[in-house]
């Protein structure tokens, strides 16, 4: 199937600053795609280029196979939900939503029906005659979403639309956004710096860093098999174990990490002895126990810090030559307190190995 959106070697620079560099990206119809990255990574610029508010310095942007690189925003069939909603303050909710429909030249009857249908989708039927100033943050958010959906765009662009909401409302809106996306079957392109938002809603996450794509994949892959140190650090909490290769034994690498010997599956890599690698180990993949476990990796350590966090307990366990492992256990799983000995262990396949890029320089 032809992709809805295609970035074809797109570069955008502002003076000497390169915001987006050689971006190649295709987005399939009906997907929830998230551009994730820290501020300044080029995610918003990419979105604005697709919206028509920035012109690429080089490269092409295709929308349904048609080159729209230089088409003005009012002539391309994409709509944006802006970060602060940008609702027209002098128009009622209904008028705001009708704006794009009126400009499409639809007759009043059709506009009226469509507006009502959209308001019902987010349960705001009773608010049609209110002004934006009379709505709560979450309601404004929904109106902005419906206004952008009203003209039936090929792609809906969302520029950090949840960042102005408080934590609880944000979580609620994440679920609602995803539900609306599934109900309407629209292609959503969502921009955020919040990894939790990205994991919750996306079919595909595109992690960006310094104007380039770091890694792209579904949430599970990105979390479970990060392809770079940047991705491993950016998504979720993680232990990054920088280790030296001791040798290979039946496809499993033996590594020296701070004086402790650990085993890891090098995946597609073929490490040489003495080379450095990173082992990515998620805190929840580590099991803590009083007795020696039977897992492929097991180390005896000392609890340095134990923090109760409600539904889980976070423990810092010191192993080897003073190295710390961040672990996450069930509060009742382990009775040992700070200063006491504990065994940590993890299955070989739960850790991912990524090359240490700097070592090759």
């Amino acid at each position, binding site marked *: 199937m032809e992709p809805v959106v295609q970035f074809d070697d797109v570069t955008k620079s502002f003076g000497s600053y390169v915001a987006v560099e050689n971006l190649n990206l295709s987005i399939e119809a009906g997907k929830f795609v998230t551009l994730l990255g820290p501020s300044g990574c080029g995610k918003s610029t990419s979105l604005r280029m697709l919206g028509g508010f920035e012109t690429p310095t080089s490269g092409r942007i295709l929308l349904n196979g048609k080159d729209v690189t230089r088409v003005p925003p009012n002539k391309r069939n994409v709509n944006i939900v802006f970060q602060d909603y940008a609702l027209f303050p002098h*128009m009622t909710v209904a008028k705001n939503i009708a704006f794009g429909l009126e400009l499409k030249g639809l007759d009043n009857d059709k506009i009226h029906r469509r507006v009502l249908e959209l308001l019902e989708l987010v349960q705001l039927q009773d608010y049609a005659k209110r002004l934006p100033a009379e709505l709560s943050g979450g309601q404004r958010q929904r109106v902005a979403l419906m206004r952008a959906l009203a003209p039936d765009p090929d792609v809906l662009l969302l520029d950090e639309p949840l960042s102005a909401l408080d934590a609880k409302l944000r979580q609620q809106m994440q679920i609602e956004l995803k539900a609306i996306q599934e109900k309407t079957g629209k292609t959503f392109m969502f921009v955020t710096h919040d990894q939790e938002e990205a994991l919750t809603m996306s079919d595909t996450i595109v992690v960006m860093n310094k104007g380039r794509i770091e890694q792209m994949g579904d949430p599970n892959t990105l979390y479970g098999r990060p392809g770079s140190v940047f991705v491993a650090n950016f998504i979720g909490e993680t232990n990054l174990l920088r280790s030296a290769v001791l040798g290979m034994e039946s496809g499993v690498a033996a590594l020296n990490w701070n004086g402790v010997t650990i085993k890891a599956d090098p995946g597609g890599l073929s490490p040489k002895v003495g080379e450095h690698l990173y082992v990515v180990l998620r805190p929840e993949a580590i099991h803590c126990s009083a007795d020696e476990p039977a897992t492929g990796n097991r180390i005896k350590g000392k609890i340095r810090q134990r923090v109760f966090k409600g539904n889980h307990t976070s423990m810092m366990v010191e192993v080897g030559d003073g190295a710390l492992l961040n672990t996450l256990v069930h509060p009742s799983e382990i009775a040992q307190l700070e200063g006491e000995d504990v065994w940590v262990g993890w299955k070989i396949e739960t850790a991912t190995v990524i090359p240490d890029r700097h070592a090759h320089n």
Partner: protein
Amino acid sequence: MRTPFSDVPRTTLTAFYWAFILYLLLPLTLMMAMSFKDANFVAFPIGEWTFDWYVKVMQDKQFLEACLYSIMIAAAATLAATTLGVWIAMLIVADGIRGQIVLFALACLPAVVPGMISAISLRIFISTIDMPTGTAAIILGHTVHAVPFVVVMALTRLRSMPGNLVDAARDLGADSIVAFFRVTLPYLRPALGGGMIFCVLLSIDDFVRTFFLGGYRPTLPMLIFAKVQGGMSPEINAMATLVLVVTAAVGLYAEYFTRRARTR
């Protein structure tokens, strides 16, 4: 330490304030009082009271014509000044335009140039381009004078406008003209309402520019001036009182209007 003298500055200030109020209001009150005097000359004591002067003024064809003429000029000048002022304000806030500070300074200049200088230079200007004195010249003069006030008011409002409102309109299919009329202009409306009333008051009040640029048809201030030349009479007081009441009411309404817009 509290001494009998520590209250002096405040007491003095209050005294000055009341002196100022008295100085401001006394002449106006006297003028109004005299307009009700049933006699031909302006002097105390008032003696008999009457509304006759008002009746006479309202039947005075010259006065009514001057009113109409003033209103017409004010309307034209306001329309022109608002159009120009909004345009200049939009240029000043637009991206990628150089010399915005110079533009702003030039737009504000007519507000600070002394009226006499402005009037003389406009007179020289219109005769240089062979433009006759009269209605068009007066409107030109009043427009130039009013533009800075519109620019400042529109600019204040524009600067508080979320930048992506226009982007949102464009995104939803509006070209820049539609976006201006359907989003920017309605957003500016409260500021423009106040600004336009101010323009009207400036124009109606203007004497010096009108004097230098006008033809034979008198505007309201010119008519009153001409009448005063022929000697004071309670009729002039009645005229002036009418003008004062109407303009004060309009001015207060404008103040209320912009205040409400600012707090909204």
